């Protein structure tokens, strides 16, 4: 186990029961490592298990199988009580800035809650000494402390959410689509704030999104997920320049291009059909039902994620 890895995930699996005998394969055998101070982007269609993956890592859900190693400690099987000290190292920023803040609490109380939960401060006054600088750090002021969350705009709320996640000075922050509910103009503001924090404190981010250009901007590495599995993983620019997996190609091909001339030249490689049900995922390569290059082998044998050179990993029979 390397010292420089803040998070190691091995064969992480999370299945949910749906009905009596049906099982939803939300996350199926995902492995990756995240280095200190780096950002790993996870992209994929809606319903591919990105959020479940994040929530399992932060142990909101109990993993079905696999291993989660946070900063050299295996937290996979810990009970919630044992887990508490490790929560300080790992925090989460949520997708919906409207639902993730309690409407009955003032911003001060929201940001002070982690401090109270971990007994880092004894009184409200003591908490204020930490809360006010943090508020200013995210671009809000002392005057905002007594306000309720609903009085803020979406961007301001998301910054409150960031302040709440960062006040414990965690080493790893899981960002579960932190910008997808925001205006484009506000997205940049929030992303830049996150980047500033990363430079300042050496944070690591697990950044989940479906906005591919934003992921390219923030991430050092990018993992592409399809139906609960990682299909391709590489350094960010490499994956955008040279996508190998047909799904990644399709995903990148579906990004609209603003310039119509360039858009006409672009290779049309959109993905046909819908994502199959995670209750009965296809055998072999899960993408073979929609893959334009599928060969008979694809439906029988599950391709492993293999390094095709330069740390570019892909799970596809076409690339071995």
């Amino acid at each position, binding site marked *: 186990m390397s010292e420089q890895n803040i998070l190691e995930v091995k064969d992480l699996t999370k299945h949910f029961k749906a009905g009596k005998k049906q099982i939803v394969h939300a996350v199926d055998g995902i492995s990756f490592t995240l280095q200190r101070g780096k950002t790993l982007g996870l992209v994929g269609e809606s319903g591919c298990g990105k959020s479940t993956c994040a929530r399992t890592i932060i142990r*909101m859900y109990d993993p079905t199988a696999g291993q989660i190693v946070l900063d050299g400690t295996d937290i996979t099987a810990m009970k919630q009580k044992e887990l508490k000290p490790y929560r300080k190292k790992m925090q989460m920023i949520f997708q919906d800035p409207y639902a993730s*803040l309690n409407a*009955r609490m003032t911003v001060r109380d929201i940001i002070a809650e982690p401090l109270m939960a971990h007994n880092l401060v004894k009184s409200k006054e003591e908490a204020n000494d930490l809360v006010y600088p943090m508020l200013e750090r995210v671009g809000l002021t002392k005057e*905002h402390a007594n306000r309720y969350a609903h009085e803020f705009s979406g961007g301001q709320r998301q910054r409150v959410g960031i302040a709440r996640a960062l006040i414990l000075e965690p080493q790893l922050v899981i960002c579960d689509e932190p910008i997808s509910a925001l205006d484009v103009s506000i997205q940049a503001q929030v992303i830049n704030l996150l980047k500033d924090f990363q430079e300042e404190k050496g944070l690591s981010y697990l950044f989940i999104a479906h906005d591919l250009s934003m992921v390219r901007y923030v991430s050092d590495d990018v993992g592409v997920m399809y139906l609960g599995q990682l299909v391709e993983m590489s350094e960010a620019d490499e994956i955008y320049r040279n996508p190998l997996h047909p799904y990644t190609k399709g995903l990148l091909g579906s990004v609209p291009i603003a310039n119509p001339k360039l858009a006409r030249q672009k290779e049309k490689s959109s993905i046909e059909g819908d994502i199959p049900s995670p209750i009965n995922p296809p055998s072999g390569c899960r993408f073979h039902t929609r893959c334009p290059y599928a060969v008979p082998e694809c439906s029988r044998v599950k391709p492993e994620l293999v390094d095709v050179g330069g740390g570019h990993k892909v799970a596809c029979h076409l690339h071995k």
Partner: protein
Amino acid sequence: MENKWEMLGSSNEDREKIWSKNRTFAGDVWFRFRHKPTSIAGLVIIVLLMLFALLGPMFTDYSYSTQNLEVVNIPPRMKVYETPDGSGYLYVTQALKVVQVSRDGIMGNQLKKVREEADSSMTIFDCSGTEVALYYGAKPYVIADPQTRVIYPSAHVWNKSYVLGTDSLGRDILTRLMYGTRVSLMVAFVAAAVNMIIGILFGGISGYAGGMVDTVMMRIVDIISTIPLTLYVILIMVFLESGLQSIIIALGTVYWVDMARVVRGQVLSLKQQEFVMAARTIGSSTRTILLQHLIPNAMGSILVTVTMLIPSAIFMEAFLGYLGIGLKPPLASLGTMCNDATENLRSCPHQMFIPALVICLIMFAFNFVGDGLRDALDPKLKK
């Protein structure tokens, strides 16, 4: 800022400023509460009723148990006959006695009976030296001159001695109403508080824990609610001695099931929300999550349930009084007063209407206040 149309600078302060007023939580709640006329009306009614119930007995000359059998079933507005000398009035009681009434309605002494003239259906009384006759041959009974048989002029005066009249045992209804309101309000507050605490804890734990714990706890609630709650209360009352304490115990231990159901439902849906997940990833304790996140957000429905519960507690207490297992007789409650009045409903409907009116007032007031509180406690409705 003098000119509101001037361009703002790009300073952070202007951009992030929230222009609405900043108030404390209590100030905010009060602001929203007082801007709703119905809730203020409800609050005023409750305060007035409480003053009436707590301070009122100091200002009456009677106690709730003082009986005066000579003046039973007297209405608040009396039909009276003038005395022969015209200085005052005479009132005929149901027991065919004649009572002096002053010009402004204060009841005086009873007239002395002189003799009975049964053949002409008259009783002769002595009214300060003059004889007057009470003719009881036909209803309504009248007072007339025994010689000329001329009926004295009649009038209606408001009863000043017993403002709301007396009941069938000659007790002052106003005084009993004060004590009755006191009992009803006390039952309402205590039963509501006990139910709220038990219901919130039971429902909150059941909803939050989920799984087997939830199933078992909710089956307990189901079992309790298969038998009508009224029956439980009656059974408990049979075991306990009748009295105010027992009523409160009986109501408090039974009526929380609705509250538990409501709280559980709310908690079940709230615990899936992101802010609760956030609290869990932060590492907040279950206690914090329940008391700071889930229950405050469920407060709206909790208050609505409480305001429904208060009238039913008052009704239940009245019903127990009606069955005769409520308060012990000389004690008054609004329910027992209604019950006592049913016997004379035809002749003295006011005995029933007055306590019933107070019950209505209490329930209206609590509903209005509950409604206002629910809105006031929701910071999302800030104006």
